[in-house]
């Protein structure tokens, strides 16, 4: 008997079925893959761009008909090359990997910053089935960086947007808006995904107001299956124990979360 999961852990070649420009620097790539269609919100895949790199990406949509997508910001060499890919081009996909968001019904706050919005969209789909009453907060630097806004507005009645330069929605940081809301309202769960400093602030707010909390974290990932140790944060592996961590877990990595991450060589760098 073999304990190995060759189907999951070897890149499956998929063809890009659709490309959507979400904003000047973010594109969504649609593909068909059976394993991804069975993924849970918050899980990620390793995307192989043959000859270039293999990078971790959250699934931005998960559909039972087998169609899934990744939504990618152009941030480095691999994502630049990926952005040139067109319908009919191929990608390698392995996974889905990691845990997923624990679903909470009732009053729910979701806070997404930048491309951290990506895994929160399939989360909304799942939460609405429970049902949950969602207050969705989106933060971006500027209007041009916003994406998924229409999609989220269609699904959720309470959506608030902040931009740092005030070019759309409220001017300021999304965490400041969250703080104002938390002063008055109670939530059964707060979900956050975005820059780690933002998630740290949301974690501290959740602690202050005694609310349950989950955040999806990011680190340099190599193996994706929990053995190489590249993506460790304290006693956790992002790829296996995460990427979603509860407030209780984050308390255990307080001297690391929001403060530093590890480079590819394993050394620590400040966030």
């Amino acid at each position, binding site marked *: 008997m*073999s304990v190995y999961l060759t189907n999951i852990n070897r890149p499956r070649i998929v063809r890009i079925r659709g490309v959507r420009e979400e904003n000047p620097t973010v594109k969504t790539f649609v593909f068909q893959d059976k394993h991804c269609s069975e993924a849970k919100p918050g899980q990620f895949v390793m995307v192989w761009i043959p000859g270039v790199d*293999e990078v971790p990406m959250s699934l931005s949509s998960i559909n039972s008909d087998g169609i899934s997508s990744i939504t990618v910001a152009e941030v480095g060499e691999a994502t630049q090359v990926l952005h040139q890919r067109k319908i009919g081009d191929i990608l390698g996909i392995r996974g889905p990997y990691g845990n997923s968001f624990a679903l909470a019904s009732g009053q729910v706050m979701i806070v997404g910053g930048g491309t951290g919005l990506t895994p929160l969209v399939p989360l909304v789909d799942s939460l609405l089935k429970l049902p949950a009453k969602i207050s969705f907060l989106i933060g971006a630097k500027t209007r041009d960086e916003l994406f998924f806004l229409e999609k989220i507005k269609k699904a959720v009645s309470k959506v608030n947007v902040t931009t740092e330069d005030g070019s759309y929605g409220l001017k300021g940081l999304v965490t400041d808006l969250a703080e104002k809301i938390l002063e008055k309202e109670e939530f059964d769960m707060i979900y956050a995904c975005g820059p780690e400093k933002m998630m740290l602030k949301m974690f501290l707010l959740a602690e202050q107001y005694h609310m349950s909390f989950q955040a999806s974290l990011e680190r340099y990932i190599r193996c994706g299956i929990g053995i190489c140790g590249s993506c460790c944060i304290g006693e956790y592996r992002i790829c296996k124990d995460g990427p979603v961590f509860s407030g209780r877990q984050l308390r255990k990595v307080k001297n690391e979360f929001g403060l530093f991450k590890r480079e*590819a060589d394993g*050394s620590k760098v400040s966030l």
Partner: protein
Amino acid sequence: MSSRLDTEIAGLKLKNPTMLAAGILGLSGAFLRKIAEAGAGAVVAKSVGLKPRMGYPNPTAVQVDCGLLNAMGLPSPGIHNFGEEIKEAKKGGVPVIVSIFGFSPDDFAEVARVAVEEGADALELNVSCPHVEKTGSEIGQSPSLVAEVVEEVKNRVDKPVFVKLTPNVADIIKVAEAAVKAGADAMTAINTVRAMAIDVNTTRPILANKIGGLSGQAIKPIAVRCVYEIYRRVDVPVVGCGGIITWQDAVEFMLAGASAVQVGTAVAFEGLDVFRYIAEGIDSYLERMGFGSVKEIVGLSHQH
């Protein structure tokens, strides 16, 4: 678990004969500590060199039938940034063995010196990584180069020195004998087997480095044979490594001559509890078979 599992290798006292293999989760002290607390008898930290190394780009790992293929490229923060991790690892309360690599005997010795200064209980010389040029198995394939490295390290530190051997040689015994003659205190057999995987759709090798090392179930019979052969010819303890998932695998290695076993790839599929499962399984086996100590089964297959 009972005292039946107590064992000793090159002066290191182990509460059970399971060890974390090098290269698995050993980049951070917090994780080494967690593995110690999960039940490993000793932990081996990920190979560390003199200077920081970024390793290879991804893909660095890919699954193949009955095994895992990897070419990480020895990513390491360098020994001068690793002291904190060693100190944290030691809080786990089990021996911490630091795997080291270098591009010359002097490199190895200097890394060894600093590692010991920072608290390493022992060293494991990585002369067997199959996918980085001018180190690893390029040294480990030559008995004389291995002897040079061992001698230089032994001159510089007075902690036990394990030598992790490569199976990618015509005769592993020659390398083991040279290492022991040069003063090595224990052998670890084996590192990964040089291997590759090619994607048929893109016609490309999957690993960025094209060639990597194969671990897991596929290499277990090779590793058992290596341990068996080495045990017959050298007088130092042998640590078995390669495809150990169950307690039966561990016992098989011990019957071949291993005083302890290292577990690596199985961590991905069985989780961190794999050390406790294997140790408990060995303990039950010893009781059932009427052995008073795990030391009694080491090399037992050689009587046949």
